[in-house]
């Protein structure tokens, strides 16, 4: 459902588009910063995981080849999601990808009562943390897509838009 059909005004559309830019920028920089940091590895985050995901993360940590693959996936998917959101290129796919990643990061280290994380973090969290907030922001972007209005998807899906599906 596009912004046109939802009947959103220009102010509301602008807010959604900026939200898309801002989240995209965040993802892109996260990926890029890791790419150019030779010291970065997800190993230390994987080791801090708690609860449900711990067994899966442990099996990744135990296999150095698997670990390298996971590192690469992290970096490139973050960058791809970031680009997708900023440029409005297959933005819904990027949004779903972002939701998936953030869900994994959240479940790996949930700020639930009884769990103490030893990772450095700014802010105080109880059940809701910044990952979850960003996740739901992406859900909003998913249900109010703007990339076919402002973004490369407008070019890609022009035929569909012309037919009135846009």
């Amino acid at each position: 459902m596009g912004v046109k059909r939802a009947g959103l005004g220009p102010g509301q559309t602008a807010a959604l588009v900026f939200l898309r830019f801002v989240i995209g920028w965040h993802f892109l920089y996260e990926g890029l910063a890791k790419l150019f940091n030779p010291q970065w590895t997800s190993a230390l985050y994987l080791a801090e995981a708690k609860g449900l995901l711990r067994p899966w993360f442990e099996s990744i940590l135990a296999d150095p080849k698997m670990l390298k693959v996971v590192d690469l996936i992290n970096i490139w998917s973050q960058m791809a999601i970031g680009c997708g959101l900023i440029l409005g290129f297959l933005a819904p796919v990027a949004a779903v990808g972002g939701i998936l990643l953030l869900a994994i990061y959240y479940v790996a280290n949930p700020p639930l009562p009884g769990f103490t994380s030893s990772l450095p973090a700014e802010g105080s969290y109880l059940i809701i943390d910044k990952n979850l907030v960003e996740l739901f922001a992406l859900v909003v972007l998913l249900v109010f897509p703007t990339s076919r209005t402002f973004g490369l998807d407008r070019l890609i899906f022009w035929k569909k838009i012309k037919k009135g599906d846009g």
Partner: protein
Amino acid sequence: MDEKKGREESKRAFGRRDVLKSLASLPVAGAFFLSYVEKKRKEERRRKEILDELGLEQAEAAELPLGPRKKPAELIRLGIIGVGGRGEHLLRCLGFVHPDWVESKRIQAEENRLNQDLRTFLEQEDLNVALTAVCDIYDPRAERGLVASQNALRDGEVKSVSGARRYSHYEELLESPDVDAVIIATPDHWHAQMAIDAVAAGKHVYLEKCMTRTAEEAVKLYEAVKASRIIFQLGHQQRQQESHQKARFIVAKDILGKITLVQTTTNRNSPDGAWQYEIPAEAGPHNIDWEQFLGPAPHRVPFDVYRFFRWRCWFDYGTGLAGDLLSHEFDAVNQILELGIPRFATASGGIYFFKDGRDVPDVFHATLEYPDRELTLFYSATLSSNRSRGRLFMGHDASMEVGETLVVTADPESTRYREKYLSEVIDTSLPLFTFRPGGRGIDTVTSASERYFASRGLLYSYKDGKRVDISHLHLKEWLECIREGRQPSCNIERGFEEAIACHMATESYLRGRRVEWDPVRRQIV
């Protein structure tokens, strides 16, 4: 009217407005790109400033290569004297393993996926050695040694090989023509005699620390090895740590400025850490050669199973914290700073926690003074607190913490870094740089997370995707030196320095006063 307009709208071609809408995010992408480039430029400039200041090149910080090497052509035949806990570990580092160990590690790995011990062992490099002789005066351990000699690591698997011969007396082992080199992992009071005899028999020697039990023995062993052509290595495997090589490099570049104090520590807090090893139920005078155990020990004592297994607790056989743990710390600092034997030593301590009949202190501190180097080496140890205090080199311009990782922090009062500190290139509350083996060199951009992770220490030491045991590397170096006829890193010179430094500390403790090393008479006075 609107409907018609709508239908007309949807039939129109991709126009100018649509192009603009498609490319709406380009300014954003542009802004991102510009700010990213700017940030990278600033970071790069800061890093270059710091590296220039320190006189380093990024490339120099790269780690030592550990690429796959060809299996060495020349076989070396080894004998081992003393197959206790340490002895068995050394055998594993050489590729000989008791099936029990393999089984227990396999079970551990099943219960805890993060346990890499078995995998690390199976990926160990083949050193092309044969284990032809085993000697231990406790029958069950000698048996374990024999079984280990029959199970060798070949091509990533444990295979059956023809095993070693057992010797009840080490002199017979040394006479064997099937032994080229010998590993001595017995209690300290036997170290000197066995090593001297091995040298006389023309065998190369890998000797566990502390080199000897007394200073007199150290002089005798030194003379014997110097007069011979054999290759001698003392078992200080921490020399193989990458962080230590990096630390030498940092000192060589004078990054810390004038170093006046080095603080080393030992902190343990368990019965095992205090050498209260388990006494096997089946041990007794029937399977322990007690007379041979006593050997050169100062006192003849009736059979005591505690003295046999927990020999580290008595001055008759060991030297407690000095010979056991100060020795490692001293050798590490000696490796990095090349200090040699101290001029003075002052020690104190006592038996404050483990009052189990031992006569060695469980809390012990020693101050080794180097007036010529204008530096003090301080060692502090307790066996009843696990608070980690680390190993710290304190220089006027910066201080360096060396463990498995390395962290260098500039001093706010530093003369050398003053300018950069005032111009805010350097923030003295953050490390100047950190080094974590497995990464790619020196990291000068320390975020809060990086600092945190560096302080946590190493999770894994991966080199080319493989985890490596430093004792294996130390033995490997010894074997390479034997084949190539060159001196290893912990040779008799370093061994002598280690022994004398430790014994000075022990003597000071026992005499209750400061002691001095007389280099002419080669005595502790």
